[in-house]
């Protein structure tokens, strides 16, 4: 697989405060890559470094397999933190500046404004826009010149539910065109809904990275109790779908690789001569999983 971005041991310190610790990422072409972490975990710093607005103390990175220059940034559409535009200029004129910088044709402006549904407001000054519109305009600017990569930093931050839905639809629409997307977010469900890959960072350190369904994939938990707990333990171990088992107080907590009905489970243990005194299935929610990973 072709790599769009590689980072090698990115490290950043502000004085004695270490905000990034040797973060090495690998992002494949065509993936929707989520950079997930709580606020202040170093997501924006990471994006700032790979976009050359924050100098790193250590480490290197490569865009498209090459050392980065301002030319590689022209193939990247990016928004970091807040939408940054000239307040006294119209949406259209602001995009003309971005187009000029990226060396994209002005004719592309109409296309991107239509994608984010701002074409009718193109003559209005940026400062008259609502937060949601500002955010959409910055996505429009990022889409100018058909970038190979879209970097989005908390694109739904501060938006109302409708605004969030609009932005997510835009992201999914763009992802379908095969553009690689790097999305930083502190919201797990956002990453889960739109991303194919995820890296989780906490306090500046990379905890894990990989495919979303491998890392955040749903797992199924069972609570089991029987009169003879030892026999139960042996029977659990022999059960094919079991991924993990542990004793929690007086119950066994069993992790299954796929969902099985309680009836099937009951039948299995009955065939082993065990009568369950307690059987409950619980779906582990993503928040719990996220907390488990980050703790």
């Amino acid at each position: 697989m072709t790599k769009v971005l590689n980072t090698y041991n990115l490290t950043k310190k502000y004085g004695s405060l270490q905000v990034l610790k040797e973060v090495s990422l690998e992002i494949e072409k065509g993936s929707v890559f989520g950079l997930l972490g709580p606020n202040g975990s170093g997501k924006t710093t990471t994006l700032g470094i790979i976009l050359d607005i924050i100098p790193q103390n250590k480490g290197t990175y490569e865009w498209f397999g090459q050392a980065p220059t301002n030319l590689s940034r022209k193939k990247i559409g990016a928004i970091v933190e807040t939408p940054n535009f000239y307040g006294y200029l119209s949406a259209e004129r602001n995009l003309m500046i971005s187009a000029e910088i990226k060396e994209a044709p002005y004719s592309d402006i109409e296309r991107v404004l239509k994608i984010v549904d701002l074409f009718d407001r193109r003559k209005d000054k940026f400062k008259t826009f609502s937060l949601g519109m500002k955010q959409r305009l910055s996505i429009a600017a990022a889409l100018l010149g058909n970038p190979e990569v879209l970097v989005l930093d908390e694109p739904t931050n501060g938006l109302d539910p409708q605004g969030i839905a609009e932005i997510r639809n835009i992201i999914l629409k763009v992802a379908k065109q095969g553009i690689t997307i790097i999305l930083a977010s502190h919201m797990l469900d956002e990453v889960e809904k739109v991303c194919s890959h995820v890296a989780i960072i906490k306090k500046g350190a990379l905890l894990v990275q990989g495919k979303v369904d491998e890392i955040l994939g749903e797992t199924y938990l069972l609570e089991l109790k029987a009169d003879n707990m030892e026999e139960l333990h042996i029977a659990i171990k022999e059960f094919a779908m079991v991924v993990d088992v542990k004793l929690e107080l007086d119950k066994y907590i069993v992790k299954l690789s796929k969902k099985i009905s309680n009836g099937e489970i009951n039948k299995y243990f009955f065939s082993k001569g065990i009568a369950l005194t307690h059987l409950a299935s619980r779906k582990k929610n993503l928040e719990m999983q996220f907390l488990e990973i980050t703790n």
Partner: protein
Amino acid sequence: MIRLLKIELHKIIYSKTFWILLGLYIILLAPIAFGFENIIGSVRIGNGSKQSSMGNLILQGYSVSNFPDIWLNMAYLASWFKLLLALIVVIIVTNEYSYRTIRQNIIDGMSKWEIIWAKELIILILSLIGVILLITLTLILGNYYGDTNIFEGSGIIFSYFFSLLLYLNFAYFLSSWLKRSGFVIGMLFLYTIVIENLISFKLPDYITRFFPMNLIDKLVPNPLGKLLGKNVAYDFSLLNITVCVLYIALFITINYQMLRKGALGK
């Protein structure tokens, strides 16, 4: 180069602040230039003979609008208004920090040198506007006589041009250093009026004459000494121009280093 110019023109063509300041520069300078003779003429006493405030009698028929003196007189007058040009530089540079557009420009694909050259282009254009206005006003207001060589003394144009470049680059440096227009304007005044004089206080003339504001005074000197019968000439020497260019190079280098170290504002 054309691309950088287009980027910057998009930013300023619809900026009210830019047009107000540039308008003020032209609107204030032109009428004052027209009234220049009368202002200086207020020292006129008796029937047509001129006297400076020191009481020295000056040649009959002398006018500030006579060639070749008018070149220096106009340049000196116009020099007072360069503050308005500097304000334009301060506003367009600090805007990039307050709107955080400097970050976006870099993210979108401008190199850090391009960020600087784009602003240097604007400085160059503003300096040229200053020079063109000087030439226009001088040619309109100058008193022509049969044997007048209007180009005599016009070398001040170059001297004046370099003084503008230096002053505007100083304003650019302060802007990218302090990033907030209020601080920058305060520092510009503080440096020009207080700081340079304070540093110069105990230092010998052969050092202080190369301080930026002193250098500007050497490039476009106060012509009023002429009314006292002194010989006043602009000092467009190779040494002065070299020092001037070195200052500009120094300011640009510091600006670049600040960008490179990631000082892009908060």
